[in-house]
């Protein structure tokens, strides 16, 4: 009676594993700035670069830093095609090793449970609500494939070579964070920092991106490191380290099926 229970404990986080590459994918491929774009246009360019590849394979290590000084490490790979199809496989630690999650679409998710005879489970999307091993990634990280449809932007200034955008939730839209502050490289459209604010402007969470590298065979930049700091949890910190990435390798649709998930 506990396989789905166990699964739900993990699956939300697994869903969030889409988040890292989505977050990382916010990094943009180089594109010459021909003129100074408006704030909304700049945000759209950030979005366009978020999914600038047809398919991608990422290998991550997540480090969850706990208040007592303990660090929990989770290693996984993510295969992605388009903005919907995603296959995540856990490599460590041992208690989740071999588990896999398939997202065929935003509403269709499956989990592979090696501990239960390699059973594949269909999951309700409520599982997105669950936390992921106590990390600081949220559902919004997963869902925020694009910012422009949900937020309007205004340029609030510059810091060095970065442009500071202030994002406000559009009327009728729903999101965990109604306001964002985003530091954007206006030449590569990469995002170096995001602050997540409540309606009153109180800072709830911070995301830092660094160590950008050009993915081989493309003009896509991936940040080698993303740090999430949750100020609501006493500055609880989660690091995502990108160990390797490959884009546009020609992943087929048949690699994003239940059968592919079972092949493990």
């Amino acid at each position: 009676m506990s396989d789905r229970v166990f699964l739900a404990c993990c699956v939300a986080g697994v869903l969030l594993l889409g988040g890292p590459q989505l977050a990382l994918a916010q990094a943009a491929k180089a594109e010459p700035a021909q003129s100074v774009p408006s704030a909304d246009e700049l945000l759209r360019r950030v979005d366009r670069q978020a999914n600038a590849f047809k398919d991608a394979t990422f290998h991550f290590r997540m480090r969850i830093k706990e208040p007592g000084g303990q660090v929990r490490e989770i290693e996984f790979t993510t295969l992605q095609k388009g903005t919907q199809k995603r296959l995540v496989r856990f490599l460590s630690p041992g208690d989740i090793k071999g588990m896999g999650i398939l997202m065929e679409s935003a509403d269709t998710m499956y989990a592979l449970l090696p501990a239960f005879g390699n059973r594949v489970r269909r999951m309700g999307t409520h599982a997105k609500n669950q936390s992921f091993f106590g990390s600081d990634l949220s559902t919004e990280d997963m869902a925020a494939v694009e910012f422009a449809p949900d937020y309007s932007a205004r340029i609030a200034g510059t810091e060095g070579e970065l442009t500071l955008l202030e994002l406000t939730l559009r009327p009728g839209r729903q999101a965990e964070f109604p306001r964002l502050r985003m530091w954007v490289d206006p030449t590569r459209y990469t995002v170096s920092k995001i602050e997540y604010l409540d309606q009153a402007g109180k800072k709830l969470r911070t995301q830092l991106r660094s160590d950008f590298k050009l993915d081989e065979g493309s003009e896509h930049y991936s940040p080698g490191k993303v740090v999430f700091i949750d100020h609501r949890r006493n500055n609880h910190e989660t690091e995502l380290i990108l160990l390797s990435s490959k884009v546009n390798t020609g992943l087929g649709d048949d690699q994003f099926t239940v059968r592919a998930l079972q092949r493990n």
Partner: protein
Amino acid sequence: MRHLVAAALLCCLCAPARAELDLKLSGWVSSDIRYRIAGVEPRDPPVPSQWQLLNNGWSRNENRVRAALSIGLGSKVKAVADAELMMFGFSDLRDLDSSTLRDRVDPYYLELHAAYVDINHLLPGLDLRIGRQVVPWGAADKFNPVSNLNTLDLSDPLQFGRALANNMIRADYQVPLLDVTLTAVVVPVFRPAQLPRTAPIALLDPLRPPPISDELVARAIDDGRQIYLVDRPECQDALRRMLPACNPLTVDVSVLQPEISGRNTQFAFRIARSIFGQDVALSYYRGRFGIPVPVYSLLTGTLTQTVARIALHYPRVDVLGLEVAGSIQKLGGLGYWAELGINFPEEARLGLYEEVLTGQLRAIEYLRQPDGTVAPSFSPLGSHAPERPVVVERTPFWKGTFGVDYSIGAHVYVNLQYVHGFIDEFGAGRAPRPRRDAKNVQEQPRWETRIGDYLVGGVDVKVLSDRLLLRLFGVFKLPSLDWATQRFDDWVPTGVLFPQVVWTVWDATELMIGGFLMLGDRSSKFGDPAAGGSELFVKARVSF
């Protein structure tokens, strides 16, 4: 010859490496210590204490080591071996000789959970898996009436729902353009379910009412067995002890395994696809139910030492399955699943024989009398075909599971299921339950439908950055209606509570404490000693 071997070796060594080798090793080491808190008094026959349901006592003292090796050869071929070594932690000594045998002094078993070879894309869209494997069908949690290819491991309630691997040939074919997956499975040799060590409490109890559908016949057999209750007042007379009526009945149970023939080959088919975002599958299974039922009973021995030799067999069954699962976005992504298995069993009847009274083998049948009662009738073998009471009716019956789950916030998970037909239940109609007091033969047994109804639910709460999981699950039996007779169960409350705390002490290191509490009196589903007693447990596990 030697040249040939050398040449073959040379060819192998010189063959170019054509696929990348991918080795993965995983597994765990665990310890599991349990204390029984509500068992039953010891039985008369002297058997090793760990196999009894003592009122209190250490019930498990296990260590398990599991290791799985996966060998991938490119994207097409994969071989998997997954083995588990289990040390019971109790000696099983019955005589001096056994004390010289290592496997009796320190018993263990080795279970191979997987040993198969995958050949993917054998033909376009076709995958093949051959070897020892588990094929888990069904959309529900743990209660999967459509998953019948593998029988269940019932040896440990904490491993509830674990399937036993078996040798199979499985083929999956993805129909181009239709998004339909076809699966066909052949199981050459039937593997029975692994029964719990407490099963003999039921099977060897001479005073337990027989599982016969006909109430009058069951009652007549039950009444007949009461003569073997030796502590009745009338048996205090020494003269009466010369008769079987005042001597204990010994029950000796044997199991008839299906012969390894083509006729007993199991097979199954499944077709699955997504319809409007919901997963739908239809399946068909032909094989056997994994828990045996009695088909022969022979009273033999002497007047003062009667032995009932009972033979069990695994009833044949065909199962049509339907499963649906999905997510309801309008209800916040509520997960749901429904699973239905319509069973078409082969009839099983109980052949009754005796050779004690006259020394000749005679068939026993229970015939209806003009006054509406039934009485035993004895006839020599071959004189006519005696009427045998039905143990498994030919009437089709269904088992089903309907459930939902939901996450409340980031830390709470809720799961609820209605289950029609527990994993060990089989057959239409009703059957008698054991008595509340095993030796109170005046008590009439309760009758319940063979397929019961249950509410299964639970909640998980995760705290301390998900390092601490608080879990409470429960199973509660509901009153059931037998549609054929329009009679409700003579219901008594019974259920299981399963509280558990899991502390992830460090990466891949879990410490678990909890309890498995069986509620209900002796006549109930979970209060029956054969279901195992209530236990408290502490477990530790490190995975790699």
